[in-house]
């Protein structure tokens, strides 16, 4: 309901960010991206059936590392999975792939979600310890309203990779009960880069089913159960030496929501959750494989959180008690060419069990009507245990003194001030946060990274990574203009990255060597972005966003995956029934790259996209049609986030149809 109000407000004023940036709201450093087919705001989407990844890409804070057409890895402020926290409605989920081929975002679908909240740096610690920031994907959920039945059909087609999308949802709601179910299926063939160059092994197929059901058993008590089942098969990763035959996730949760009749507590939400992921890599379809191998991985997570929101005088507060248990196992079996020889087997993740329990406190002090001060603090106990003796002994080859268990105490604290008056906005803050090494960083065993062509070995003796962070933003708006510039600076101590160890030989055939995860004394990341909107005419808006990141290691050399100067500018037309947009985006040549971490110079590029949407009502049926052309001039290009410079998709025409009745 709140969202709806915000939407209508923004419509009536016509000048808030949420309208003009196409469903992008900005509050301090938080961005909310509206995702999904069922959201009330979906009608603002230019491509309703875009992937979750494509939706996330709209944020200036987020970029995505692409290893193919599927399962892109989100990076926040230039920081990859290890330094970020991605949750689904506050639930922790950990991918089961040692090569990061299955980020959390790959197990959901736009039909499951309503929005994604992106928090930069220490403002994202509500659901877990992070350095770079957090993304919380918000599940779409029904409302207790006497709406009765509601059906939606989605269908889409993309010409470039012949992607066929079909989905439907069936929802029912009355004042005490609701149930939403949806299904979405995507099937894509190889895509073609510019100049009609086919990218082999870029196909994918994904089926996603979900259901969420709520029951209100008293005026202020709600119980809600949610299940997402996602199964991707035959997924090609053209930038990697292996594909995926199966990536399967079951994500379940049970939530109790209690709204006490109290001035101090608005809402008390408690959730129990469980998710299990199976991920199977497959190289049987690749030609000329030096040695065939199976690499399955499993990740199971059990978790709980209990979150209280409320207000005391001028303080909006939140307390979140949370904990999880995760078990990550991955193995590798290699098949020698002589069938009489024994199989070669190893654990690449030696059954690492992680237990975390922590508390998060937030106080948002509304100093007056135009300024507020926010404090957050998070304290947690994090422990790892290597449960497999086999895996333990394997790691003891490198670390003879290794003990199975290791505990860490993780702390985070931040404060942010923001001011908003007469069209002037500014603010800033400081933060300090820590994170524990990931399973791969701590306990990985011969994980091949095709980006720098090294085998990686985990290091259980790593210290906590510590980030000191400062951020500032400045914005203004008037009847014609709206602009905002944001800058965040991270000084990270014990920065974890792979450093070559010449004394150890690689295992993978053709690899350059071994890298051991090592803590650099420090590294710095400076992330900057500028967004503006210019209101040209009643229905016309000109928008621009610019981004530039710099990362430096302790030797003042570049860190990987730092965005060169990146720009996007668009002109949108919005009318009741029609909307249209033309976008120019690109980046300049990547001059800040470091071959030591496997990067090379990526040339500049620019592409133009356009799209057109039309919606109409036919009796009670709502129909929404979106079409567009991406990369109109069929440019062959690659960006700094493209794994091994795999070229991106060439010209693509998409058609999305949504019928609601």
């Amino acid at each position, binding site marked *: 309901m709140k969202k709806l109000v915000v939407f209508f407000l923004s419509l009536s004023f016509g000048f808030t960010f949420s309208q003009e940036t196409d469903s992008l709201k900005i509050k301090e450093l938080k961005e909310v991206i509206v995702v999904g087919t069922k959201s009330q705001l979906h009608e603002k989407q230019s491509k309703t059936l875009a992937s979750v990844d494509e939706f996330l890409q709209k944020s200036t804070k987020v970029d995505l590392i692409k290893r193919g057409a599927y399962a892109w890895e989100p990076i926040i402020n230039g920081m990859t999975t290890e330094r970020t926290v991605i949750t689904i409605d506050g639930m922790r989920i950990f991918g089961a792939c040692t090569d990061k081929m299955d980020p959390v975002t790959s197990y959901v679908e736009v039909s499951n979600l309503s929005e994604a909240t992106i928090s930069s740096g220490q403002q994202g610690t509500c659901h877990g310890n992070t350095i770079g920031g957090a993304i919380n994907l918000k599940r779409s959920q029904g409302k207790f309203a006497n709406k009765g039945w509601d059906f939606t059909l989605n269908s889409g087609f993309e010409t470039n990779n012949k992607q066929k999308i079909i989905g439907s949802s069936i929802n029912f709601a009355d004042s005490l009960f609701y149930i939403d179910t949806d299904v979405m299926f995507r099937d894509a063939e190889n895509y073609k880069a510019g100049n009609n160059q086919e990218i082999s092994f870029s196909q994918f197929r994904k089926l996603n089913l979900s259901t969420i059901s709520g029951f209100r058993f008293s005026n202020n008590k709600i119980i809600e159960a949610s299940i997402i089942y996602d199964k991707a098969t035959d997924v090609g990763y053209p930038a990697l030496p292996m594909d995926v035959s199966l990536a399967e996730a079951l994500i379940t949760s049970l939530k109790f929501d209690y709204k006490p009749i109290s001035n101090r507590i608005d809402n008390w939400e408690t959730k129990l959750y469980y998710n299990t992921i199976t991920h199977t890599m497959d190289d049987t379809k690749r030609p000329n494989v030096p*040695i065939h191998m199976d690499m399955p991985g499993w990740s199971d997570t059990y978790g709980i959180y209990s979150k209280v929101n409320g207000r005391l005088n001028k303080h909006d507060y939140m307390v979140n008690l949370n904990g999880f248990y995760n078990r990550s196992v991955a193995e590798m079996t290699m098949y020698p060419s*002589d069938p009489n*020889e024994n199989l*070669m087997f190893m654990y690449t993740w030696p059954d690492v069990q992680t237990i975390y329990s922590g508390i998060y406190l937030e106080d948002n002090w509304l100093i007056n009507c135009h300024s507020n001060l926010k404090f957050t603090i998070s304290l947690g106990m994090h422990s790892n245990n290597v449960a497999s003796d086999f895996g333990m*002994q394997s790691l*003891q*080859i490198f670390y003879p003194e290794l003990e199975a268990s290791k505990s860490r105490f993780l702390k985070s604290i931040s404060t942010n001030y923001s001011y908003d008056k007469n069209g002037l906005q500014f603010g800033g803050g400081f933060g300090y946060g820590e994170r524990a090494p990931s399973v791969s960083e701590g306990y990985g065993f*011969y994980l091949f990274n095709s980006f720098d062509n090294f085998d990686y070995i985990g290091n259980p003796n790593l210290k906590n990574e510590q980030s000191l962070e400062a951020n500032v933003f400045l914005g203004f708006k008037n009847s014609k203009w709206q602009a905002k510039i944001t800058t965040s600076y991270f000084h990270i101590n014990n920065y974890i990255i792979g450093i070559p160890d010449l*004394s150890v030989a690689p295992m993978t*055939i053709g690899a350059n060597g071994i890298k051991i995860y090592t803590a650099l004394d420090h590294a710095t990341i400076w992330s900057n972005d500028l967004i503006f909107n210019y209101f040209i005419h009643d229905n016309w808006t000109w928008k621009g966003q610019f981004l530039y990141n710099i990362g430096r290691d302790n030797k003042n050399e570049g860190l990987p995956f730092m965005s060169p100067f990146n720009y996007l500018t668009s002109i949108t037309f919005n009318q009741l029934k029609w909307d249209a947009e033309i976008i120019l985006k690109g980046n300049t040549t990547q001059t800040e790259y470091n071959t030591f971490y496997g990067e090379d110079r990526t040339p500049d590029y620019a592409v133009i996209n356009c799209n057109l949407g039309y919606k109409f009502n036919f009796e009670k049926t709502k129909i929404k049609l979106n079409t567009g052309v991406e990369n109109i001039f069929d440019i062959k290009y690659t960006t700094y986030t493209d794994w091994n410079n795999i070229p991106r998709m060439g010209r693509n025409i998409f058609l999305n149809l949504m019928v609601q009745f």
Partner: protein
Amino acid sequence: MFCQLFLFNVLHTKFKKMKFQLKNIVAVLFMALALISCSDNDDSTTVNELDGLTKFQEMTNTTHTIELYSHTGVLVQGYNEVKLRIKDNATNQYIKNATVSWMPVMHMAMMNHSCPNSEVEKITTEGTLYEGYIMFQMAQNDTEYWDLKIDYSIDGVDYTTTSVIDVPASAKRTVNTFTGTDGVKYLVAYVEPHHPSVALNDMKVGVWKMQDMMTFPVVDGYTLKIDPRMPSMGNHSSPNNVHATQTSTGELYNGKLSLTMTGYWKINLQLAKPDGTIVKGEEITDTVTASSIFFEIEF
């Protein structure tokens, strides 16, 4: 184990019947007592010295029967730990105070020769077992065979017995016999690990030389350099291996063998003199993929 199971049952029934706190305490006390008595029983049972050993042969003369044991229940080409005990045929008692020595001999068409072997020593004073090692550098074949002569004396009286023994070829290479660059004939054998695992394994090897056809003393002070490789997977190596060296003269050599995965490993060898001179074996490079002396393991 049984004891505990039994206790559990007893307790279970006890708890069922229990109604008062006092009975609870009594039950717990009872359990504690029973546990103590249980562990007492465990202590009093003598450790079976034949645990993990299998008899593979008996050698009999008029007075005694000698039982030969090994962990695998067979002898095989390469290094063998052999344990034995001597039974008095008259009393069926095992002799605890014998002095034993042995001599394995290979009977070839043109000549006989022996192989590296240790002294035979009593394992414990109380026990009945004697032990030592024999390293058969070659296997038997259709025309050539090994026999084992055991000489022993009990209370000043000397006895002897000789039997043919079965020494088949080993499936994987565990012995290297070669003439070094110094003209000396060396023998190098794999001893441990018996059950290699994906770990940094404690490794034992033996290095001997042939002094004459019947004398094969341990070579002291050398280094056996090891370089394990997987030929089926690009001949990759493994980290943190420790070359085998001796801790004291006359002993076997100890090293660390790192195996990063299961499968077939070729352990390439180089034998170095105390001054560092390599008497045999080649360093593995891009062009030299295997040494002329090596061991093989597969697990």
